[in-house]
């Protein structure tokens, strides 16, 4: 089962695993409330949005591309939710995801048809999505029905719906990435597009697929976020782009593509969420928190990027 390249990729998740364990042990030993079921429930609730958006980003990175528009897509999804839930109910969710896919396809079209560098193309998409979001919802507001909240986040047990969603979605994508021909084609395209082409993998098709997936997952993250804040916010997602990239890199996904495992990404998401919780529970200086996050980001870069990145990037 865990044979071949899968094993090599699993090893890349090790640092994220160690970091997660360290944080858990450290916080649990110093704060009695950390392991309370209410706190664990809070943590799974926070893992949910970041987990979804980081998953999409990780898949794009595995294919050797990058998507800097995921944060704005999240914002767009919260706006769509806030504006339409009251009139169309749960249909707002597929609508938001459709918008996310649309944004992803737009990026992919620029990358494939116009051969624009993925980094810039996704920046351009980000600008456009941000503009559209601000036109739809110029200020935080709107209303997302409390029913959704009750379904997802009510209750103080960590064994709730959010955990189920995280397990199902990550489980599906881990299988997809490691054990299907579709997953292989993503790794192949990210590893060496020319060689992949000779194996019958069209990098255009992979681009289309990964950007669409990343758009959909970012929108899903936005949906969860809007339910959590019971409203829409045109700028709320922006900060998530960086967190998503950090989580993917910390989780061992190689920026140049072809390497990494989604289990590592999930662990990295958990550790990013834990950092905030740890600082709050241990009543550490909040200024240090920003610095700690920055240091972890730089450390991840140093560990994972060192020597792997080519001369020009």
């Amino acid at each position, binding site marked *: 089962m865990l044979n071949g390249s899968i094993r090599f990729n699993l090893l890349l998740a090790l640092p994220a695993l160690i970091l997660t364990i360290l944080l858990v042990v450290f916080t649990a030993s110093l704060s009695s409330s950390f392991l309370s079921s209410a706190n664990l429930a809070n943590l799974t609730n926070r893992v949910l949005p970041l987990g979804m958006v980081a998953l999409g980003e990780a898949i794009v990175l595995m294919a050797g591309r990058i998507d800097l528009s995921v944060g704005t897509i999240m914002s767009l999804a919260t706006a769509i939710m806030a504006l339409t839930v009251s009139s169309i109910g749960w249909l707002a969710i597929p609508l938001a995801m459709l918008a996310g896919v649309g944004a992803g396809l737009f990026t992919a079209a620029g990358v494939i048809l116009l051969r624009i560098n993925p980094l810039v193309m996704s920046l*351009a998409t980000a*600008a456009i999505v941000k503009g559209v*979001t601000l*036109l739809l919802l110029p200020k935080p507001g709107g209303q997302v029905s409390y029913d959704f909240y009750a379904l997802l986040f009510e209750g103080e047990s960590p064994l709730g719906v959010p955990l189920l969603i995280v397990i199902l979605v990550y489980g599906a994508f881990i299988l997809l990435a490691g054990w299907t021909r579709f997953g292989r084609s993503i790794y192949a395209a990210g590893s060496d597009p020319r060689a992949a082409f000779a194996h019958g993998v069209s990098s255009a098709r992979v681009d289309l697929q990964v950007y669409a997936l990343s758009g959909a997952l970012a929108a899903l993250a936005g949906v969860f976020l809007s339910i959590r804040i019971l409203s829409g916010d045109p700028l709320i997602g922006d900060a998530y782009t*960086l967190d998503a*990239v950090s989580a993917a890199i910390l989780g061992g996904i190689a920026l140049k593509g072809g390497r990494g495992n989604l289990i590592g990404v999930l662990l990295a998401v958990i550790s990013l969420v834990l950092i905030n919780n740890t600082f709050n529970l241990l009543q550490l200086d909040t200024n240090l928190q920003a610095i700690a996050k920055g240091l972890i980001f*730089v450390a991840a870069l140093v560990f994972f990027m060192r020597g792997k*990145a080519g001369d020009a*990037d």
Partner: protein
Amino acid sequence: MQTSVQNAVLILEKLRPSTATLRAFGLLVVLLCVLFVASGQVSGHQILDNMRQAAPLGIITLGQALILMMGRLDLSVGATAGLANVVLAMTFAGNMDNMAYALSITLGCGALVGVANGLLVVALRIPAFLATLATSLVLTGTTLVVTGGSPRGSIPAEFRVITEGWFLGVLPYSVILWLAAIAGLTLLVHFTMPGRRMLLAGANSRAARLNGIAAGRMIVISFVFSSLAATIGGILLSAITGMASIGIADAYTVDSIAAAVIGGAVFGGGVFLAAGVSIGALILFFVQSLLYVVSLPPATRFIVQGGIIVLALALANIRRKSD
């Protein structure tokens, strides 16, 4: 002497604007016409006055274009310009006597940012866009921590002449500074050995090193140039606003990339068009004016900006393919 004639011809040849520059210029002219039709008034003086206000973006874009020439990206220019704004106001403290001190500290901070970016890229081999992203995070965080959220000091009115004053009443000082930056960087990149070494180091640092070029050093220097350009942009911006605010320059990161790309900068590196990217900065600026004139909501600015980036790159790529 014959060689000097020959040299002059070669220099002129090198100075001939590239098609990308001409394309950007054409776009600018079209834009000005639209602006004229929409607002019913466009005078030479007004254009110069807009250039005066576009100078910070223009100079920051020149730095970004240099990094793009090296096949890299600097995502910290906005944060660096913001840092310059905060540091300048703090060190100036509203007193013209502090000018030398304030300028040297501000430029020094800018240079340090460049060195840090360069070292992250060269010594730790972190891809430039991630390294500069990390730097911008650190800068934003540090600014917040140091100022506690409320930056201090102010820019004395006398200093604000550099953005408000006009040389002999015909040319704004900030435009002169901008033109000087264009000339200086053009000279460096196209007419000097260090510029040539920089170009080679950017294109293939490994090959450059194996051919005896101190590639790492050239890359660090280019990041210092970019950060200094961002700092100068931040200083000009400070002179316009007169005070320090947090996050005031954030938009410059994406704007500078957009302007450079519109002006013909190429992502793979190897191209440096100082005039083209400066026109790109002007285009962005006039687009904003246009949106203001036709009173579209501010959000459309983002859409137009994204659209222009895609359009400019699409045009450039389609042209290259058909060549």
